[in-house]
């Protein structure tokens, strides 16, 4: 979302930053942008150059005697550098690791100086609010969460992309009215909101108005505004494993709970998706998650367990199915999948001919069978059956 603003309308961000700099009396500003977004970097450079040529940035801005110099700092793509103190460390040329607050950057920020640190989306809104007034902006959204928010819709949804919506709109409206519903008419299962450390919310919460407070109440957060929509074929344990795998590899390694704790959560989740989970694993996951949230140094560790906690809270039955029945209800965990030939089998033999380990047997024109013991669960028979007679369970 922020990338698309930087690529599509960089001047909006520059204007917001210039106004903020003017408001606090700053003369230097940095835009921290991932080097992996070369188009954004290139267009920002052009925009800064244009703004300086026109006298809106640089020295003696439109004859006011005020100077505002904006610089671009290209980051190397570390997730933790989205945390403000890590971002500042990275701009200063140090390893991108956060430090405890206080002192807050507003008091001691970049080079130890008071720093106003904001997101691209925030700065992009500044000029509009000043032009049209706070009352205009507040008439969108709710009293506690005024204004609009851009969501990045992705996953198993018909219309992916960015959508700017007034706060207080329900998740159902975003997913069905704007997003056009679930892909291929499948059944909705969950929506993950707020980026890799967001929570997964179930169907019961689709009518929840999306505000900062309401999301916090259900253990979720607005975060980056990412919305990942999942359908019935998504396994929630696997989703939790996927996101913990991300946060674990993005943990900066500084504090113990995040560095060591996310690793142990990942090991447990991997074990459960592979069928090796035990009932005590679920309890241990919850204890780990609770303590990592409480004891971690920065926002990364404090939010990393959210996908785990929310999936345990709302999809506990799926965890239990993996652990007790060694069964993945969504059929997504390959290690737990089994392929079964149903009575729709015509005995054509396509599956047996394609099976790489030759474990499907049966006479021509008679129902075939799979030797489950020797099956490697590759799914070749499932995809090749011309009669859809093989089911995954």
């Amino acid at each position, binding site marked *: 979302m922020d990338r698309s603003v930087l690529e599509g309308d960089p001047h909006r961000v520059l204007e917001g930053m210039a106004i903020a700099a003017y408001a606090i009396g700053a003369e230097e500003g940095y835009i921290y942008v991932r080097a992996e977004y070369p188009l954004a970097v290139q267009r920002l450079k052009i925009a800064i150059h244009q703004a300086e040529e026109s006298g809106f940035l640089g020295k003696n801005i439109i004859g006011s005697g005020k100077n505002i110099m904006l610089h671009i700092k290209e980051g190397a793509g570390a997730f933790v550098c989205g945390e403000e103190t890590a971002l500042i460390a990275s701009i200063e040329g140090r*390893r991108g*690791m956060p*430090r*405890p607050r*206080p*002192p807050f950057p507003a008091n001691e920020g970049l080079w130890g100086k008071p720093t106003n640190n904001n997101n691209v989306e925030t700065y992009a809104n500044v000029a509009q609010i000043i032009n049209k007034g706070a009352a205009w902006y507040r008439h969108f959204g709710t009293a506690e969460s005024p204004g609009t928010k851009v969501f990045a819709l992705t996953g198993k949804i018909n219309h992916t992309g960015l959508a700017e919506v007034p706060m207080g709109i329900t998740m159902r409206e975003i997913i069905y009215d704007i997003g056009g519903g679930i892909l291929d008419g499948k059944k909705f299962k969950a929506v993950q909101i707020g980026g890799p450390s967001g929570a997964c919310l179930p169907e019961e919460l689709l009518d929840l108005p999306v505000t900062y407070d309401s999301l916090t109440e259900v253990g979720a957060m607005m975060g980056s505004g990412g919305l990942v929509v999942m359908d019935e074929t998504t396994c929630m344990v696997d989703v939790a494993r996927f996101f913990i795998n991300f946060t*674990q*590899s993005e*943990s*900066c*390694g*500084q*504090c*113990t*709970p995040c*560095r*060591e*704790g996310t*690793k*142990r959560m990942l*090991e447990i989740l991997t074990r459960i998706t592979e069928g090796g989970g035990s009932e005590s694993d679920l309890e*241990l996951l919850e*204890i*780990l998650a609770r*303590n990592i*949230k*409480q*004891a*971690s*140094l920065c926002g990364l560790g*404090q939010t990393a367990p959210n996908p785990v906690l929310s999936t345990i809270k709302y999809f506990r039955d799926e965890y239990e199915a993996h652990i007790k029945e060694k069964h993945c209800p969504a059929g997504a965990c390959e290690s737990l999948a089994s392929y079964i030939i149903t009575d729709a089998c015509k005995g054509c033999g396509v599956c047996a001919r394609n099976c790489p380990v030759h474990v499907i047997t049966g006479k021509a024109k008679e129902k075939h069978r799979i030797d489950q013991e020797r099956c490697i669960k590759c799914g070749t028979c499932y995809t090749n059956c011309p009669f859809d007679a093989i089911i995954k369970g």
Partner: protein
Amino acid sequence: MKTVSLTINGIVVKAPQGFSILEAARSAGIYIPTLCYHPDLVPEGACRMCIVDVSGVKTLVASCMYPVEEGMIVKTNTAKVREARRMVIELLLANHPKNCLTCRKNGDCELQTMAADMGVRTHRFDWGERKIHTFDASNPCLVRDQEKCILCGRCIRVCRDIQQMNVYSFANRGF
């Protein structure tokens, strides 16, 4: 220097402004366990052993870095704090060799003492992966057993801030 007054475990403590909660607590004789903290070094708040509960703050905070404030209410020994500290110790031990008996630091080891103090005699992650490092005895003066390292960062800070040499740094991110 201005003095602030705060409450730690129900005891009113006076401390100079700029003191950390840990310094204020120690000056009042209140014990808070620490690992990465060292009185001669700039604190980093990395190990999370010294976490305490501060009223009005959402998460637990590292007392070695959190500055005292007037009227602050701190609890250093609640069930929540103890559970989190035990978890920190368990997590450190899970990635640590289990050869205390033959370790030359046996009996003179802060990690061992801390675990014993907290009654941590086993940990719940004995199935977990442990980082394997090679034992470096190539230097005639120093041996370096990286597997024992708990990444407290003291060596980095002493080299950077006291020796002013800045020779060491972290490499990679743990796991």
